[in-house]
């Protein structure tokens, strides 16, 4: 009797902690959402000409002067929205991979998808340029080349791994091997090719969202939004702790199949976003860890926080390159680490929640 009461009183604070953790996670996700929206408005406002925030809101709600409408709707909003979509998708992809492989170094780039896409772009630039290094087709086909490269790489990884694909670390190693092979072909093609091509390919590989048009944004959204919803559904099926075989069986999951589905989903998310935004893969490594430090190990809060962190980082990086480095076109992808890393290190050093 007394033993039971003591047990109860010991458990009560744990339950209290759980409720508090959940409330905390919800608050942080909402805060991140606010930051994302502010960042979006700020990104539309800042640039070579400053548009006051109230005018940004006016333009977005259908009013505003002609000049402001042109700047915001045609020049700034497409790249900002692409940054939101691609940043969120890459981050979610990384989240799924880290969760399902239980490897903290897992990220979209180790599946071979990013380097495959980069190889697609480099081959595209190499094959379809004439003697004076001008492209003989429209640059608008470049995303297609990237997507094809990404799909080819994923197909290769799965074909090579065969039945071993259900083992997490093996699939990662297969991905790393394919990525490395693609990377070396890229290196050789770039070193033997003309400098102009090197520069252009290097820009893609780093990742950037400038020169985005509405058509590309619509296409990306059309492909990414369903994939993101699927990812969220998959996340609800993830056990709250990281997935190991025993806990998966205990919640009735067929783990090998589930892993394959998640891998495919992560690959699709990455392929779609890198096709238009380039190799912005560092976000996929960093944002999920950031989310975990912020909201703990809950799957749904984690996926939402990852997506928002990813969106904010890529928007922030794009804003920095537009404001600080203009007129030199530094690709936003290179800055993502500079934006994300300090805050991540701060989170890492401030808290000791890694084992929580």
């Amino acid at each position, binding site marked *: 009797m007394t033993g039971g009461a003591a047990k109860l009183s010991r458990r009560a604070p744990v339950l209290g902690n759980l409720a508090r953790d959940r409330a905390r996670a919800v608050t942080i996700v909402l805060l991140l959402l606010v930051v994302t929206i502010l960042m979006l408005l700020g990104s539309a406002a800042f640039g070579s000409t400053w548009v006051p925030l109230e005018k940004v809101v006016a333009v977005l709600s259908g009013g505003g002067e002609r000049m402001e409408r042109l700047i915001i709707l045609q020049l700034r909003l497409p790249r900002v929205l692409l940054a939101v979509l691609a940043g969120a998708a890459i981050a979610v992809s990384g989240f799924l991979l880290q969760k399902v492989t239980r490897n903290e170094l897992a990220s979209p780039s180790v599946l071979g998808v990013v380097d495959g896409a980069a190889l697609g772009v480099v081959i595209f630039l190499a094959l379809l340029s004439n003697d004076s290094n001008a492209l003989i087709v429209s640059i608008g086909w470049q995303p297609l080349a990237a997507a094809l490269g990404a799909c080819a790489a994923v197909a290769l990884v799965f074909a090579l791994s065969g039945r*071993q694909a259900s083992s997490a670390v093996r699939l990662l190693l*297969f991905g790393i091997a394919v990525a*490395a092979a693609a990377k070396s072909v890229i290196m050789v093609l770039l070193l033997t090719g003309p400098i102009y091509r090197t520069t252009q390919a*290097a820009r893609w590989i780093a990742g950037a969202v400038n020169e985005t048009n509405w058509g590309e944004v619509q296409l990306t959204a059309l492909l990414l939004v369903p994939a993101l919803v699927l990812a969220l559904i998959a996340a609800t099926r993830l056990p709250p702790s990281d997935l190991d075989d025993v806990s998966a069986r205990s919640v009735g999951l067929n783990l090998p199949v589930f892993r394959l589905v998640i891998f495919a989903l992560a690959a699709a998310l990455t392929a779609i976003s890198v096709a238009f935004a380039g190799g912005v893969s560092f976000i996929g*490594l960093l944002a999920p860890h950031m989310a975990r430090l912020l909201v703990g190990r809950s799957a749904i809060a984690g996926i939402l926080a990852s997506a928002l962190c990813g969106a904010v980082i890529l928007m922030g990086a794009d804003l920095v390159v537009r404001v600080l480095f203009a007129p030199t076109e530094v690709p936003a992808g290179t*800055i993502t680490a500079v934006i994300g*890393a300090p805050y*991540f290190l701060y989170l890492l050093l401030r808290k000791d929640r890694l084992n929580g």
Partner: protein
Amino acid sequence: MTATANRLPLIYGGLVLLLGVAVLGSLMLGYTIYTPGELWDALAGSGTSEADTVIREYRLPRAIVAPLVGAALGVAGVIVQTLSRNRIASPDTLGLNAGASLAVVAVSAAFGTSSLFGLSFAAASGAFLTSVLVFALAATAGGLSPLRIVLVGVTFAGLMNAMVEVILTVNEAELQQLLFWLSGAFVDRPLTLVARNLPLLAVGGLMAAMLARPLDALQTDDATAQSLGAPVRVIRIASFVAVALLTGASVAMAGPVGFVGLVVPHAARALVGSRHSEKLGAAALVGAVYATAADILARFVIYPTEAPVGAITAVVGAALLLVLLRRRAA
């Protein structure tokens, strides 16, 4: 284990033999191909003046640099994978190569340095500074857990690679010249450069050898390691220093040669199992053969131009990794 122990001399013997063949190949093969007789004459100093120059001043240094760098990175890779308990970790994961690259790019952008010794010194300093930084940050917040080491390292790697990219994009003129350095090369490394870095390699190698037994304890979880009486924290610190010395010396000699430190540990484990007293030696030999072979291949892939050896190590390593994986040995 006993079966492996019986095979051990055979495996080591085979690897040493392979290394000998690779080094000979590295001396004989290239733009001009020499026969063993010509090679002997040149080494003895009685060959034609042309063969004399090519072999003694051009090929001999790289036939020495390549195996040294390969061995150092292979050993460093084994230590990092044990230290981080992560089989996809490598010296790159700790940010050392990124730190070296950043130092090189920053120094040449700021001072226009292009002398090999200047760049080499910058690379080593960059790698050491990064290791101190990563170590200090990982240590300050709640101990040196593998997860923390990896996360801090990866973050620094990303941060520094980003800075490299920014500097390169802003000073585009330097792009082509440094791109070659940044992918690693064994070409045109004078023996004096090797001599300067030899002490670092020797100390790092010695530390690795002394760490063999303690690292075995680190393969289990911390509680088990501690109950076995292993001073986990001391082992981690010593491992970190050994990795910094070995990687720093390699990057100073050859630039950031990728992928060696990732693949070689897998190959070594497939050959001799996971005891470090056997794995570290095997990793040194496999790494040496691998880097030397990659260096020979680099001369022929886009003949007559040299390919950057980093591209070749990645492609050869990818093939090796695939073979290991397909045989379920990795």
